[in-house]
């Protein structure tokens, strides 16, 4: 697509020099993007169809759809697909999205110091390096960790969360880390709703929930769409957080697709197979991206 850059430098009515000065500044970015982003994606699409391995193989050969056939017959792969789905729905769609909206809505009414304090805490969790966040939540969920200490104090049953419910533990971790993004998006959206509209509804006697459901939500539906799309894409590619907390274990019980891809490609040296999984992830991501573009279509 970026080939367009060159197309206009040809038979365009503008003087060649003017066109050149206009296209020239785009070159460094375009070269970087082509070499280091488009290149690997194209290479990905190629090696997904080969049996490339990390070691002990002189040459890789083209094997067509074999990797994909293997994947769909591979229980570990199907398990990873399922866990990715659970992880995305629980942590992004239900967790980050709903909590982010709730926080943004509460912040509209809260007093300024509380708003600043809570916003600061939630955003700090978001700015924290991925590995540190993973490590903090690892400590939180460990058998000797804070969660169990709190549950114990409340006389509730404790358990080894990272062992019994690892996918829920990493989902919660992702909510902890990612909610700030939704909160910021929804705060911006709610701030743009004219005060008169909500006030008029209030005078007409509409309660909080009804105002939310019938007025606020329809007015910010485009932000909701955009936010859902972006957090889904972010969540699909989470690696470090889960890697630090569980390494995908125990026994693959928190192994989402990125971790499955990594394990196949490097721990089992099946680069071709791992890349086929990556390609599937990329295709799913592209579909979401395309929907996202549709949502924004009036913007560009």
């Amino acid at each position, binding site marked *: 697509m970026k080939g367009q850059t060159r197309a206009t430098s040809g038979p365009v009515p503008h003087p060649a020099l003017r066109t050149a000065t206009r296209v020239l500044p785009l070159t460094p970015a375009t070269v970087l993007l082509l070499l*280091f982003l488009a290149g690997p994606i194209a290479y990905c699409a190629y090696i997904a169809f080969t049996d490339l391995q990390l070691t002990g193989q002189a040459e890789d050969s083209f094997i067509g759809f074999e990797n994909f056939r293997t994947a769909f017959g591979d229980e570990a792969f199907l398990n990873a697909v399922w866990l990715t789905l659970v992880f995305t729905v629980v942590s992004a769609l239900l967790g980050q999205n709903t909590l982010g909206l709730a926080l943004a809505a509460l912040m509209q009414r809260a007093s300024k110091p509380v708003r600043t304090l809570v916003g600061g805490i939630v955003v700090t*969790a978001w700015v924290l*390096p991925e590995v540190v966040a993973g490590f903090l939540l690892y400590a939180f969920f460990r058998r000797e960790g*804070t969660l169990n200490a709190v549950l114990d104090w409340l006389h509730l049953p404790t358990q080894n969360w990272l062992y019994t419910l690892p996918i829920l533990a990493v989902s919660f971790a992702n909510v902890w880390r990612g909610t700030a993004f939704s909160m910021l998006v929804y705060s911006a959206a709610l701030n743009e709703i004219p005060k008169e509209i909500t006030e008029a509804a209030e005078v007409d006697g509409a309660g909080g929930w009804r105002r939310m459901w019938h007025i606020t939500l329809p007015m910010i539906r485009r932000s909701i769409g955009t936010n859902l799309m972006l957090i889904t894409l972010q969540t699909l590619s989470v690696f470090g957080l889960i890697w630090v907390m569980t390494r995908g274990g125990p026994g693959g019980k928190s192994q989402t697709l990125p971790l499955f891809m990594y394990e196949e490609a490097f721990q089992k040296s099946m680069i071709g197979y791992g890349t086929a999984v990556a390609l599937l992830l990329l295709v799913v991501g592209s579909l979401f991206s395309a929907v996202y573009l549709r949502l924004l279509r009036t913007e560009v």
Partner: protein
Amino acid sequence: MKTRTPASRRTIRHRLAADFGLLVVAATFVLPLAWVVLSSVDPQANLTVKLPDGVTLDNFDAVLTPEITFTPLLNSLLLCGGGTALTVVCAALAAYPLSRFRSRLNRPFLLTILFATSLPITAIMVPVYALFVQVNLIDTLQGTIFFFAASQLPFAIWLMKNFMDGVPKELEEAAWTDGASSLQSLMRVVLPLMGPGVAVVTVFSFVMMWGNFFVPFMLLLTPEQMPAAVSINEFFGNRGTVVYGQLAAFSVTYSTPVILLYVGVARRLGGGFALGGAVKG
């Protein structure tokens, strides 16, 4: 506020309810953060959040060595500084024609950029590794910097273009009349006027790279080149039992710079990070 009408009493009640709700959520959010801060100064740190048995800087003392902290942080600085510089320069150059000149290539270019913004970069790390092995860029700082810049560029260009659109064109026209080239007017007129915008792109790129684990984890192999994002793993692996106090002290040291940077920029822009058009629906 002074006259207590029923309406204003209701507002106060609502505000108290909202404050309470927010504080409850904040309490669960703060526990892991409190743990790392308290443990870093606790001589007997373990995995549970608790008030320290006494305050000590021994944990910091133990990790603030060239091997554990300074070298990884310097590596992070080189990687992220290089990546950010490359990103910001390329993004500023690319955004200029996109923002200033009407051309048929703008729309497809911007749509491609926007599309790339939301691609799951994690997915291509395995092929990037394979490609880097082929072209001998594996385990090199420059290779990692290039990839960092490329992965951050789509969003940076998009943000930069939106900020640049906010600078009125009339101001440049004066410079053009005086015979300034596009590059000169970009450098002397446009970029200085969009200082906060450039700061946002710079800080955002830097923060994203500083916290990124998977890219250096895949592309760098030599321990001496590892940035802090990867070297933190060492605490779990080769050192036998984990000394939680030291790990917490390292986490605090490693996280503080980006939090300060973020706060610095966010405050100037009034609270919410201006993520620009990319997230505004």
